[in-house]
């Protein structure tokens, strides 16, 4: 037995090398796992139907990814500081209704600026209540979600809001770069900007500091309340951009339109590897997470997977992705 073991056991140097490689892979697994998942999904669905890797399919996936990425980006910032914003989708819905209502009257540029400003103000209100009244962000944004939906429905009277301007069509659906819908381009550019902000600016470092340990950040001189307010306002503004993309894609203002995407946006954030506990992750990961979610949905639709099975698969993939990307060293106990 011991002789067999000796024959099977690799040389100590090889074991060390293997472990070093594993450690190196482990260090980057938060990005590697979603990337591998994206590749695996593409390969798998292509093996099921040749239509999956096609220009039409790619454009469809990019279109779906555009809105989901931007609304998830909005949520990512708040999650990075250890909070959560459940009102991002409702904020996007309101923005979508407002842009449809205002674009013909105010003109495209002014309407977009106003809508983004309204979104930022909504986010700021979330931040003020969370920061100064010390109400948990979960509860504040849950309440705000209901308020915003009420306002959206009041403005639209619960029905579609049509508009004549073709600006959103050009801005969102047409392709400045051939093959890439402008909406997807906006999402990619926003992700790049957000990633630079997160990793290459003092604000970004402060954001992670607050998310990792708020008290330690405060003791280190970080203006925690200002960071939180800025993050919530930023999240609101980005959610408004998501709403504009949504209305552009739907060609009409849709009451409650963006709301059902809230859970998908949170799934995109966590599948990407951003920890709900704050301080870990980043906007670039959200882009990957959104891509996984959209690839999965689109792939299962195009291969005609039964809708009941789709629910099981989506749940299994989210759990598996989190199991793979979660950094257990940050948790003493997992509940």
């Amino acid at each position: 037995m011991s002789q067999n073991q000796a024959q099977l056991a690799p040389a100590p140097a090889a074991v060390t090398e293997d472990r070093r490689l594993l450690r190196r892979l482990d260090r980057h697994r938060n990005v590697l796992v979603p990337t591998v998942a994206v590749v695996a999904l593409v390969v798998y669905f292509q093996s099921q139907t040749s239509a999956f890797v096609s220009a039409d399919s790619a454009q469809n996936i990019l279109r779906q990814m555009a809105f989901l990425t931007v609304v998830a980006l909005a949520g990512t910032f708040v999650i990075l500081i250890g909070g959560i914003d459940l009102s991002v989708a409702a904020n996007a819905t309101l923005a979508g209704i407002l842009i449809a209502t205002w674009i013909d009257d105010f003109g495209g540029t002014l309407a977009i600026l106003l809508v983004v400003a309204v979104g930022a103000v909504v986010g700021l209100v979330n931040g003020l209540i969370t920061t100064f009244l010390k109400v948990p962000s979960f509860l504040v944004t849950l309440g705000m979600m209901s308020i915003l939906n009420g306002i959206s429905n009041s403005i639209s009277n619960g029905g579609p809001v049509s508009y004549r301007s073709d600006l959103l069509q050009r801005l969102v659906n047409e392709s400045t770069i051939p093959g890439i819908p402008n909406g997807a381009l906006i999402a990619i550019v926003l992700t790049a900007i957000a990633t630079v902000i997160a990793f290459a600016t003092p604000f970004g470092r402060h954001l992670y500091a607050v998310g990792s340990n708020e008290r330690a950040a405060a003791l280190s001189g970080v203006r925690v309340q200002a960071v939180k307010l800025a993050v919530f306002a930023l999240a609101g503004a980005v959610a408004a951009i998501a709403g504009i993309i949504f209305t552009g894609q739907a060609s009409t203002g849709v009451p409650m339109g963006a709301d059902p995407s809230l859970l998908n946006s949170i799934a995109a954030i966590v599948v990407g590897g951003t920890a709900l506990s704050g301080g870990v992750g980043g906007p670039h990961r959200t882009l990957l997470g959104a891509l996984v979610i959209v690839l999965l949905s689109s792939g299962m639709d195009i291969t005609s997977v039964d809708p009941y099975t789709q629910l099981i698969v989506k749940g299994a993939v989210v759990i598996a992705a989190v199991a793979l990307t979660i950094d257990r060293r940050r948790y003493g106990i997992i509940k």
Partner: protein
Amino acid sequence: MASTESRIVDIARDPSFFPSPLSRRAFLSVAGAAGLAVGLSACGDDSTGKGKGKSVASKSWIQVTTLSNDFFVAFNEGGKQAMKALGVEVASLEDQGNVNTALGQIGTVKAAGGKSVFGTPATEAQAAAVTKAAQAAGILYASSYTAPPWYTPADADKWVRFITPMSTKIAEATARALFEEVGGSGTIIHVPGAKGSSADDQRTAGLNAALADFPDIEIKTASPGNWTSEDARKSFTNILPSVGDFVGVFAQNDSQAAGVIAALDAQGIKGKAVTGFDGNQQNVQYIADGKQFLTSATIGGLTAGLLGVTTFDALNGVEFSLPERFMAQGALLVKPDSAATVLDTIYQDQLPFDWSAMSRSLNPDSWDPQTVLNPIDPEEYYQGVPQDEYTLNKAWAKADIAGVRETYDAAFKSGPLFAFKSELVA
């Protein structure tokens, strides 16, 4: 005693089993990957039987809000049965009422080489968005129930047909039957659907139209039931203390009627006449059991089948005139005296309709819609609704609505609903 998880991890780390024992984290990562693999492998469990290499050229797609609701399940099943009868491959899409998902699915159909989708959008806004997306993608689209006011198939040539029950007329007939059942006097609790829904507005309008002839009926309106059993149960329960005695309940759909019946059962209240809308099988059974007084059955599966056959015909060269593309489907008022018969003859696992007979392309001279289909006059249908979002397309000025009505009336000559032809409300 060691947990199962610990023992599994210990085995994974045992050098006698593996030459390079895994760390606990590495093992958990591998286990996670296995979960992902299991998830992906389930994708291969394709209950609709589609496989690699099959042509999707003639395949059709059914888009529904959810498959966790009686109506949508029946709609989906009817669509599948009709397409199977025509030899057309079909797949289901569940959009969860998410417009973003619904639009993505239209893109998916296009990417898959699909040429047709039929379904039932959740809201007017979704109907507008999906119709425009299908038009832009060049995919034939047929839909039911919900359409944006004054926006008709004349505005989108790929929107081949819209079929809906005439909510106002059916609601008026339902309300009249209810008022007569309770003796023409007393308090009726009205449980509306969802605010902002045209179907809800039309059903309320029908109720009010009937009310004009029954001065001794008093209506107490509860909060919206949002088309669900649970919300209706809550809104009905909440209004009860302020109502006092009442004689009946006008619930704006069958799911809501089921919620009301649950609340009545929970409180031990008996002898109240409850009406619903849609003809869900459960509610027809309630009527047979004496728990509900009436529902109006348009039979969602039949609607889906009619839409599916329409896309099949359109793809096979049939050109439908404008009035044929905007139609009302007959609804059967099911009461206690007819519920058992209706259950036996219509609510079968396999719907008893001759789908092939409906096809104009298969039976150019002898097609039969198997139900009442009346062309809708948009001026009448959208009467009182402002035209600020959409205006009626000028093509309607030349539409021969009366001629199409006669043609379809003459064509309906068989099927399980033929015995009820004169009773169908459309």
